């Protein structure tokens, strides 16, 4: 256990040194400040808006801006997760940092698990903090609260962990630049699939909806994000609910417990693949 803590702390100090946390903190403060400003502006003027019949302007505005905040939270969490894990194996081996650690009686699986846990210990509280900060900003400025409070935040954190695991797996095969590009492209592909799903719903195109669903489950961080979006307006009905379920940056789709179970299994499978691949690698 002490080796796990030692390696996790080592990874985090390395990230601190590379100013990963400073950049993410700066981006987060900037985002929350802008988000607060945007909320103030939106809710100051929401009373003046005369929406089409069947639409509750306050609910629509609140859910829409908070949906945007969820996307930003996911994005910032993913940036943090990727930068904490993208160079764990190949890049550190290329720089000669990994070999002195691997020859110690610790075990490669422990080393990899420790680096993942180190990233998780930072990413999960970070995502939850940003999520709840955004929720408070929306709630206090607009007097709108999502239907589900905790679960969507946990799903975002889960989505970020899935990306961290993919980045860790990629680090076994790719150097940091290539791995970073690859994982960001996978992340982008997930978002594009979500947007395609939106278009599919709007056009009632079954094939497009099916493709989006397959992609969302193949890279379940996207499905978790969609499920989280669905959660914030779960009890909102009528035209307001319909429009909100189209969602910003990806549709709101319910995944339920099957998705959550699959995401946990997926995470474990990706981590197992990373451990096996790392165990077979010559350094």
């Amino acid at each position, binding site marked *: 256990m*002490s*080796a796990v803590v*030692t*390696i996790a702390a*080592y990874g985090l*100090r*390395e990230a601190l*040194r590379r100013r990963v946390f400073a950049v993410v903190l700066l981006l987060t403060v900037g985002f929350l400040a802008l988000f607060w400003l945007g909320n103030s502006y939106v809710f100051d003027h929401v009373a003046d808006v005369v929406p089409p019949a069947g639409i509750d302007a306050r609910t629509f505005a609140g859910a829409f801006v908070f949906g945007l905040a969820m996307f930003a939270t996911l994005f910032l969490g993913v940036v943090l997760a990727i930068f904490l894990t993208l160079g764990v194996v190949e890049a550190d081996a290329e*720089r*000669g*940092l990994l*070999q*002195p*650690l*691997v*020859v*110690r*009686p*610790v*075990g490669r699986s422990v080393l990899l698990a420790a680096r993942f846990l180190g990233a998780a210990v930072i990413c999960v509280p970070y995502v939850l903090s940003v999520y709840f900060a955004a929720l408070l900003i929306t709630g206090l400025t607009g007097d709108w609260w999502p239907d589900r409070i905790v679960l969507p935040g946990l799903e975002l954190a889960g989505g970020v962990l899935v990306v961290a695991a993919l980045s860790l797996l990629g680090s076994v095969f790719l150097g940091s630049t290539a791995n970073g590009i690859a994982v960001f492209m996978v992340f982008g592909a997930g978002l594009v699939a979500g947007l395609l799903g939106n278009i599919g719903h709007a056009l009632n195109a079954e094939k497009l909806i099916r493709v989006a669903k397959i992609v969302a489950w193949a890279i379940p961080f996207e499905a978790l994000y969609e499920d989280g979006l669905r959660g914030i307006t779960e009890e909102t009905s009528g035209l307001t609910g319909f429009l909100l379920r189209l969602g910003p940056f990806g549709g709101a789709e319910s995944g339920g417990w099957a998705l959550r179970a699959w995401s946990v299994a997926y995470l474990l499978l990706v981590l197992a693949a990373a451990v096996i691949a790392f165990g*077979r690698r*010559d*350094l």
Partner: protein
Amino acid sequence: MPALAVRELRKRYGKAEALRGVDLEVAGAELFGLLGPNGAGKSTLVKIACGLVRATGGTTTICGVPAGSHEARAAIGYLAELFRFPGWMSADEVLQLHQRLSGSERGAAERRELLELVGLADAAGRRVEAMSKGMQQRLGIAQALVGRPRLLLLDEPTSALDPAGRRTVRGLLEGLRERGIAVLLNSHLLSEIELVCDRVAILSAGEVVAAGTPAELARPRGVEIETASGTQLFEGARRDDAPRIVRELVAGGEEVFAVRVLSSTLEDVYLEAVGGDPS
């Protein structure tokens, strides 16, 4: 029980064969030198011994247990040819990290002792990024000694050191022998190997082409005698032949000024063994 035993060791990278059935043994407290041109398979052998690379065939054991196993890794210290420590860590922190990973409980006393051993006692708090290449290499040796390993695997440990630093490391290696630590030293510097190693193996194209003590490998090359009529070389003559040759020369009316017994150096043996390719 040997500190390192390698039997029929093979390693293939794609179509290239890095090791083709290597056999060698390093006894406890023995300083064993590994020589060979670039690409001969020296680093591959060392990496297999410390579990960084998987062998294609054959066996490697460290103190009787398979290389790469938890027990084997607990018994070794390793300094890679190309290594780096995080620049933000101090020398003391690097050693502390490796103490934690190796399970050493000897704390600050061990760190102090190791830094003194490599001549870095005054640099315990200095960050790695503020150290010269030579200091980093000495810190690397100190790191390899954390946890009192029974076998030390050193891959080009003096490549970045100046002559004074090399002398320090030579002294250190001799000290390790006295402490019962076996050392496998992989180096390009023949003179260094010749000076400190008990036995030497020369690797070429993945095979051991010569092995033995430096004295066994060095062969007599003749006796060179300086006379009034010039320097004469008696090829194949040995030290025992020198008095007879001098007597014959004096009897023949020559004046003898100097006698030198010539033997091949490790460098000669090395160049002969690797086919004249010094790379």
